[in-house]
């Protein structure tokens, strides 16, 4: 119920968008997100985009975590 997954927006037909979840495409509602653009990542919960997700964090996962570890004293 609180599950949400991250996908990439492929096309927009307001209030819907087609979102790609690692190859599986789904139509989701995007009414709750301001200024959504194709190519951005969203967190989807029960058929709803609930928040945009920073694409840099999704695409550069390892590099970011290495920096986090190094930053901890």
């Amino acid at each position, binding site marked *: *119920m*609180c*599950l*949400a997954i991250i996908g990439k927006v492929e096309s927009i037909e307001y209030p819907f968008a087609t979102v790609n979840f690692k190859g599986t495409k789904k139509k989701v*509602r995007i*009414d*709750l*997100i*301001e200024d959504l653009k194709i190519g951005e990542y969203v*967190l989807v*919960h*029960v*058929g*709803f985009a*609930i*928040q*945009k*997700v*920073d694409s840099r*964090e*999704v695409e550069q996962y*390892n590099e970011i*975590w*290495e920096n*986090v*570890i190094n930053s*901890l004293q």
Partner: protein
Amino acid sequence: MRSKIIFELAKKIEKEANGIRDIKIMHLCGTHEDTITRYNLRSLMPKNLKLLSGPGCPVCIIPDADLQAVFHLIENANVVLTTFGDMARVPFEGKSLFYFKSKGCEVKIVYSIFDALEIAKRSDKPVVHFGIGFETTMPSTALAILDGIENFYVFSSHRFFVPAINHLLSSNIKIDGFINPGHVSTIVGVKAYEKIEIPQVIAGFEPEDVMLAVYQLVKSIKNGENKVFNEYKRAVTYEGNVKAQMVMNEVFERENWDWRGLGVVKDSGGKIRKKYEEYDALKVFEDIFSNFEIKEDPKKRACRCGDVLKGLIEPLECPLFNKVCNPKNPVGPCMVSVEGTCNIWARLGGC
């Protein structure tokens, strides 16, 4: 690479917790329990740090009274009932919504409330959606109500989660810090927790996120910093999703509602406002509910879901765990829902 990061963080937690008193950290989301159990993160915790599971499963915290009311409705009114899959399996006196479906009642499992709206558009019967979930889910229910489909109604079992944190703090369970629920937080934002006086970290759902949250909490507990940190910056902002908050607050108001395990939690109930009562199943079918009486389920007397939800016991301490009560034949909701702690421990081998 991932295991290297996780082990690095485990070493840092160990070092930080070295020499301090015994501490208890509670997470508040079924998905966090899944991550912790799946990656066996409890085995990486120092001996003086206990990682507890809290009331973060929306199916589990719904009291039997709500479920009985929905059973009463479908037994006495000619309606189509829609709900999410996990909710349909929760038993009361040995019956579940799937039982009523097998007896010919129109119970339909939906993935999204908008599937329920589509069912309503195609049906000439009243369609009632059994709405469950915290702030993560409430905006979608609010939008569905605002869509204004005339034969579509909601039986709201929605609960605002943030008041439950205050409730836990005022109870006798001694918790030193919370891992706040990531997805609820995408909606409510960091600001929702600022007045809660205890160390908190909003965390994502990768094992690295949870380990980093624990590390930060140990530091905060040591330093007496009653602040909220946002580890899940990739999805959670300070303000949260303001548009979602607006639609949620437009449709729902807060009442003091009961939670399984926690009892009545002040301002936690997601009651549909009077302005939208034409979509509120409780109002529309009030005649049917007028003779409804709450009962106790004798089959659940030995179930300790309430204590599991408060972090007082672990599933293994329930005598029914994985014996009488298992994922195929659940006794309590914590064994039904994939986000329930008992279900997660039974499937993934928690300890």
